[in-house]
């Protein structure tokens, strides 16, 4: 029932009178009669008190069933989030500010973004990062757009990339009228022979996900060489947790590095808000879409941060801008920076190592069950695909025991393990699957 309007009805009447207006209709005199909604004509229920709204929304939340143990990833990862990482972004100043257009009263936000950009550059080995885009899928689509020039228009994407990423890049290509070609996968990894064949002089960029949708680790350095030889740009979509222990995309020859940053302190949240990160070389920095914070000085020589390189952006370039993005996921970028600061290099490495080790432990135990086999033969990080006899029953049995099992996909079941899951929980899950499969 609240509308959060401080003025009383009497005050509002006085204000109307001060304006020389008889009533509300006079205020809206430009709105034609044919479309003006009279009082009460809006066809939605009446307002509720905060108490009633709370009960209603809580009842909806109660209809969901969160799982104590999550063995499912596929683009949304249940990593541990330190308490402070949840707390800091709820500070009202960060929460309720707009995009930092007025640098003099926004140094806190601008500095936090500058620190975030630095962290992303450290993880990826790149020279420059933007202030974020919407998520990993849109980051891939934006990267494909920034790599096109007049001659090279075609984008290649690996069939082993996340299906939502492929569909999103396909949609952006549909918009701009550019061609997207899918590089087939073999044994769960990008088919390098097929890639070589598809790499013509018209190819602007190649998108590879590392680790890919199936959890498999691509030969990212080898692919880098192939792409370079063809004169195309190399876009790598990386898991930011894996980057703690993986070689940097920079060493592998990447021109643009993107990824889904949800793992860096954001809860699963039924898919969002998440965080798209983008980093690139000094050479391509001015082709990055979105906000970029730069360091400079004021007249007294004090360090100052500003939204920089704005000549790239839509409010200046209008239809000549390469992207229309303005609002991004700033608070998620702040969250990621908090996460990285809290975990530190050692903590992040632990999260990566434990995720990988526990995934391999689960794979080892599951494949002891008759009929359960790894579908792909290559090295993997924290996700892998198995066959699973009586798949539906096994997954349901896990759910009944408060465990969200792997994701059923065409090739089998895609499992994921993070550092959050203990060995005892993994053993319990394996026993449940074993019972179903051997029944």
């Amino acid at each position, binding site marked *: 029932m609240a509308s959060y309007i401080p003025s009383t009805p009497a005050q509002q009447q006085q204000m109307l009178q001060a304006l020389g207006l008889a009533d509300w209709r006079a205020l809206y005199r*430009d709105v034609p009669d044919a479309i003006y909604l009279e009082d009460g004509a809006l066809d939605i229920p009446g307002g509720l008190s905060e108490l009633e709204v709370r009960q209603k929304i809580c009842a909806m*939340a109660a209809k969901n069933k969160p799982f104590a143990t999550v063995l499912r990833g596929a683009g949304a990862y249940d990593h541990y989030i330190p308490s402070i990482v949840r707390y800091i972004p709820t500070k009202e100043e960060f929460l309720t500010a*707009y995009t930092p257009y007025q640098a003099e009263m926004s140094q806190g936000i601008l500095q936090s973004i500058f620190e975030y950009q630095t962290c992303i550059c450290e993880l990826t080995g790149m020279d420059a990062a933007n202030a974020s885009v919407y998520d990993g899928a849109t980051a891939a689509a934006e990267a494909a757009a920034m790599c096109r020039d007049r001659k090279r228009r075609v984008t290649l994407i690996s069939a082993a990339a996340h299906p939502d990423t492929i569909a999103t890049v396909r949609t952006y290509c549909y918009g701009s009228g550019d061609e997207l070609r899918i590089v087939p996968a073999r044994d769960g990894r990008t088919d390098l022979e097929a890639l070589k064949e598809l790499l013509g002089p018209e190819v602007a960029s190649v998108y590879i996900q590392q680790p890919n949708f199936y959890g498999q680790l691509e030969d990212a350095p080898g692919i880098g060489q192939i792409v370079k030889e063809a004169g195309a740009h190399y876009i790598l979509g990386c898991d930011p947790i894996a980057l703690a222990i993986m070689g940097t995309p920079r060493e592998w020859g990447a021109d643009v590095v993107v990824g889904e940053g949800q793992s860096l302190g954001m809860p699963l949240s039924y898919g969002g*808000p*998440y965080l798209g990160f983008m980093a690139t070389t000094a050479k391509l920095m001015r082709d990055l879409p979105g906000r970029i914070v730069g360091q400079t000085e004021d007249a007294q020589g004090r360090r100052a941060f*500003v939204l920089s390189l704005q000549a790239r952006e839509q409010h200046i370039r209008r239809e000549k801008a390469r992207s229309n993005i303005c609002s991004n996921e700033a608070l998620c970028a702040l969250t990621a920076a908090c996460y*990285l600061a809290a975990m530190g290099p050692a903590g992040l490495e632990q999260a990566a190592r434990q995720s990988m080790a526990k995934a391999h432990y689960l794979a080892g135990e599951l494949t002891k069950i008759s009929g359960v086999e790894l579908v792909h033969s290559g090295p993997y990080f924290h996700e892998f695909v198995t066959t699973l006899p009586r798949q539906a029953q096994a997954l349901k049995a896990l759910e009944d025991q408060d465990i969200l099992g792997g994701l059923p996909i065409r090739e089998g079941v895609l499992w994921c393990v993070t550092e959050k899951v203990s060995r005892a929980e993994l053993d319990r899950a394996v026993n449940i699957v074993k019972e179903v499969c051997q029944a």
Partner: protein
Amino acid sequence: MKLIFERSVPGHGTEYLPPCDVEEVALPPHLRRAAPPKLPQLSESEVSRHYTQLSKQVYGVNCGFYPLGSCTMKYNPRIDEEMAALPGFTNIHPLAPGYTTEGCREVLDLAEKLLCPITGMDAMTFQPAAGAHGEFTGVLLIKRYHDARGDHQRTKIIVPDSAHGTNPATAAMCGYQVVNIPSAPNGCVDLDALKAVLGADTAGLMLTNPNTVGIFDENILQITQLVHEAGGLCYYDGANLNAIMGVARPGDMGFDCVHLNLHKTFATPHGGGGPGAGAVGCKAHLARFLPKSALMDGQDDHLQVRSFHGNFLVVVKALTYILTLGREGIPAAARGAVLNANYLMRQIRGFQPAFDRICMHEFVLDLSRFKKETGVSALDVAKSLIDRGMHPPTMYFPMIVHEALMLEPTETESRQTLDEVAQVYGELYDLAHQDPDYMHGAPHNAPIGRPDEVRAARDPVVRQKL
């Protein structure tokens, strides 16, 4: 203020994880990292202090008056935040089986059911993550519509010159040629200019109404009719919906699709630049083209603009807000916003409105004469406002007004606040005539003075060297 990297001390840190209880596995040698990333090393107390100090150099709606035109900086209710933080929402995997996510579905379905009558649309998607993303989605719907009819000759999108920069940028991203039309002297669509460019090559029109000078276009029904007669579709940019929600509906105005900024109109916080949510509504004839998720909804040739189903928690916040306001509160908020804008416009002394008439939720001051008289620019006034402890309005937009300051007070400001604000603007008007140099040097009391932006662009430093 020190950077977080400058506070880092080797060996500082907090252990959040238990020791690994399974056998370690190593990456293949050619994929291993040579040296760890140089992330900051701080104890939790040091992290906490760093961000608390940063937060003191941030100005949010909760800090004070924030009349950023076109951004609808209204109060963000705390209950909305609390509801979005419920573990029953935050701990739900987007790919969990349907029977365990019924509450999430209900949130999305109910939000659609409430926003359709507010906009006059028939269906809605919550996949777009921000306003510009919603524009992109909406114009793609138009493109799909024409393509599905085999109507491939429609290559142009019409955009008024008063539009947000995102409109032409969006049309270009969708492969369209942008046709800019000049506004009429009253800031609204020039019907003759519109008629002159409409034709068999018109894919659609993108329009904000009330427009970016804060005026409701009284010819709106004629405008949409003209576009439809030419075979084009009409796209409603929802940036300014706050002025008319519950009072007039884009669907009734003749628009075929609309994007909403849930983070403006429906009170979800902007977070210093996101996350937002750019819900897109459309009429029935476009509903089958709405985007889906390949992984959640199955793979076919659908549109998809982001992974999964968008910024779900932002929708929870907006839904909480809409349920709270309801049938009476939604139009009351719009009326309050329009009343506050008109009241403030009339209370401000000295500075001239660009359009001396009733406005909607925002108004534009034209400081070009003032600048000729005093030498003080819109920028100088904006920076002087910072010294007075309030956020400046939007500057130098829309481009059709020179030396523009665009104020949108929103409905959540009291009359007392507006009176105080008007007083401050009046004082600055006087100050400009007495001591313009002082204003050229503003702000004087902020943590920094005006930063050297030219240098930032010429020699970009976008990361700390470690």
